[in-house]
């Protein structure tokens, strides 16, 4: 499991294994300033990073 959140330090303190910083507290996987097509490209890149974290073995909380 990978958690995408803006409270990465809290996630780390409670022992979540894979942590990724989301964009904003109220839209962790959004980038509303961008035009829709670019926002989607940005989101695909973010989720790709999340997938890489899922492929990475971790033993203790790690922020990707």
């Amino acid at each position: 499991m990978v958690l995408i959140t803006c409270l990465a330090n809290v996630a780390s303190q409670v022992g979540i294994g894979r942590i990724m910083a989301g964009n904003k507290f109220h839209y962790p996987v959004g980038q509303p300033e961008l035009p829709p097509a670019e926002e989607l490209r940005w989101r695909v890149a973010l989720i790709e990073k999340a997938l890489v974290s899922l492929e990475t073995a971790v033993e203790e909380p790690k922020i990707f």
Partner: protein
Amino acid sequence: MIKVLHYLNQFFAGIGGEDKAGHEVLFLPHAVGVGAVIESAIKVHAVEYATIACGDNYFHEEEEKALQAIRASIDQFQPDFFLAGPAFNAGRYGLACAKLCSWVQDNWRIPAITGMHEGNPGIREVGRRLFVIQTGASAASMPETLKRFSLLIERLISRDKKAIEDFRAEHCLPIPRRFTVKTDTPDYVRAVDLLLAKLNGQPYESEIPRIEAQQDPIPNLTGRLKDATVALVTEGGLVPKGNPDRLESSRGTKYFKYAIGDRDDLKRGEFQAMHTGYDTSTVDEDPDRIVPLDAMRLLEKAERFKKLHDHYFVTTGTGAMPSKMAEIGAGIADELAGSGINAVILTAT
């Protein structure tokens, strides 16, 4: 003169075993059994010790009568301390100890002490500020437990606040509940008092007990991501427009799953976020900003992973009890594991 009143069940009071579990409340003007051990340990003080004995079944089946009798004993004896148990992992006994101690502390404003194992269902009945000394699961831990009872009484007698709180931190069970209490001081005054105490380097304690997270092992992907089914989960409260299942927007107690198998994108107007913990307007404009379905579909088509699970799971993670959230998390995890999911992306606000 220190007056101690100690509640014991029929077994520990030496009345009898299960056959005497219906025994009614009995006041004894002296220490019995474990009470005698505690009395002896604190004998440097002038101690007057009395015992209330009651059958495990009687307390639960005739609770009102039992409380009435105990009330009469307390009013007559006027104890400075109320003890109950220890109950270890005995359920009926533990419940009686927790209920009684909470009731005594609320009504007579005297320190109440009990002891039990963390698995005892009595934990659920424990009131705010009660001392619940952690014990082993069985009476094998009796000697150590009684030492702790005596030590705590000593510290309470000495009124050494720091020593008492040190004892609580070291030997008492943390109670993972919030309580409604009445107070004469408004919250803003209490908040400023706390802040001033902190700034002045004085001892202070939050009114909301800190709950330590339980550390769970971190799972790793067992096969290749190329062969994995991946699920999307969120605590961001995203539900179909109109919130058909009435997901709470805060203090959530439920989770739901919604089908996305025939969608490539979550469209504005078809979903909405129920969540008082964040400004949901940006997510409502484009729900993929909290449940990234559009991006997941593109990566699925690119064969980065085998399949996106055909439902996403959702709850509302704001203002809720951690214990309830743990239940919800376990429920979602069970469903995911049962559906052959290999990996999860969880988005949180």
